[in-house]
């Protein structure tokens, strides 16, 4: 069962994503911010990260750079309330992005695509 790490400082989003993604057949772990996130990834070895861009005290795009530099091929999906983040070039290091919604259809579609991405070697 693929393991997904949801990083979001809003508790109701973590709960919503956890419940829905567990129902969809994923194992879900959560983090409320970027504090010691790289250690958590190293320890838990998730198959994919869903990352909030705007968190109190943490910039998701900076966290994305850290993740990409340490875990080169770990899929990261940015979760955001607005798509203005695309003006920041750091965002191109993400596999996909989704606009936050209570309907997780798009998120689930992007998770499935990211998990089935295959590169030789």
């Amino acid at each position, binding site marked *: 069962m693929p393991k997904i790490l949801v990083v979001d400082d809003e508790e109701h989003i973590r709960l919503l994503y956890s419940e829905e993604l567990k129902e969809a057949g994923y194992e879900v772990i959560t983090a409320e911010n970027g504090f010691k996130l790289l250690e958590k990834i190293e320890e838990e070895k998730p198959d994919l990260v869903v990352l909030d861009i705007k968190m109190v005290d943490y910039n998701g795009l900076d966290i994305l*750079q850290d993740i990409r530099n340490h875990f080169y091929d770990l899929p990261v999906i940015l979760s955001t309330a607005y798509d203005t983040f695309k003006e920041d070039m750091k965002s191109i290091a993400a596999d996909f992005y989704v606009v936050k919604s209570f309907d997780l259809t798009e998120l689930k579609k992007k998770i499935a695509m990211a998990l089935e991405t295959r590169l030789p070697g």
Partner: protein
Amino acid sequence: MAFYEENPGQITGADIVVGIPTANEVESIAVTTARVDKGLSEYFPGMRCVIIDCDNHSSDGTREAFFAAPGTTPRLYISTEPGVGGKGRNIVNFFQRARQLDPKALIILEADIKNISPVWIRNLGTPILKGAGFVCPLYVRHKYEATLTSSIIYPLFRCLYGRRVRQCNVGVYGFSPKLLDSYLNPPFWSEMLDNYGADIWMANVALASRLPVVQAIMGSPKVHRLKDSYLHLPVFFHEVVGTIFDLMQVYQDFWKQVKWSKPTALFGTDLQEVETPLPVDMNTKRLHEMFIEGFDNYYGLWEQVYGPMVVPKLQEIRSIGLQHFSFPTQTWMTILFDSAVAYRWMSPAERKNLLDGLLPLYLGKVLSYVKKTERMSLQQAEDYIENECMIFEENKPYILKVWTKGEGG
């Protein structure tokens, strides 16, 4: 090996080796060398660095200007024999000479860039020293700049090799000694690589090498001393697209396994000041004329090469007229994939004709892109290209299906 060498410092080893291919570049080699020297001294103090001018036996004083340029980094000059030209020869000489220096990182540049900045050297070299295999720059570009990349190279490479590297055909790269070994033992070489095909060959081999790729944000455009986009377009188009099609055969076992695409890591996100792109004018009337002229010259070829869905669609596109001109991405993708398959089984003369016939279609696709994005911001135009890339990726099963046509018989 190079025909001629000057190594006044008796250099036998280096940590970072920077190569500058030249052919009569007396006007720019000194400035380029001085800025490379500044970048190496500022960002890599304490490391053993060398700058190599890989020349085509220039007769205009390039060699003298290279050695006379200000700076303290040791220099080495190598050259092809008189009468042997082409960038490909220079880069092969660079690879061979650089290997003897046992470097930890390599950078290759272009001599005629007017605005090369020392920070470019940092951005191309640092990721390699941190473990990357290939660094490709991300220059500030206008939405109409490098349309061959936006229309063919980027969507095809994403779909085939699974990495989202936005500006593959720039001729300025950082790379690791491991990738250098791949360049020194090439799975493929052709005359096209002597000139315009060399850059895309380097990027293509890198993407198929399974080494980590980093895109480096350069913070500025790449401004060449002399540039006429249309002057060499047919030859440029032939050599770049022909090289991609040639390498599709070489790396078919690789790209057949790729599904969807992945981003790369980024470097240079700390650059505070990012310049605005230089304006690019597009002559839509001329693009439309060249597309229409293609019907007079290549319609028979198109009927032979492209499927029954494509040719009527091309007639439909022709009938639209300039004002509402539109070239659907689905049709363009089918044309590119069908062209790659046809190229596979053709003689050299037939391949030339195929690429001649593909050029007006490409110009039609460029015209369509210009029309669609004329009121868009740069970011919106990028989103448009991203959507086009997704259409290519979603249709990967099509190329997998048609690729095997003609096999076994």
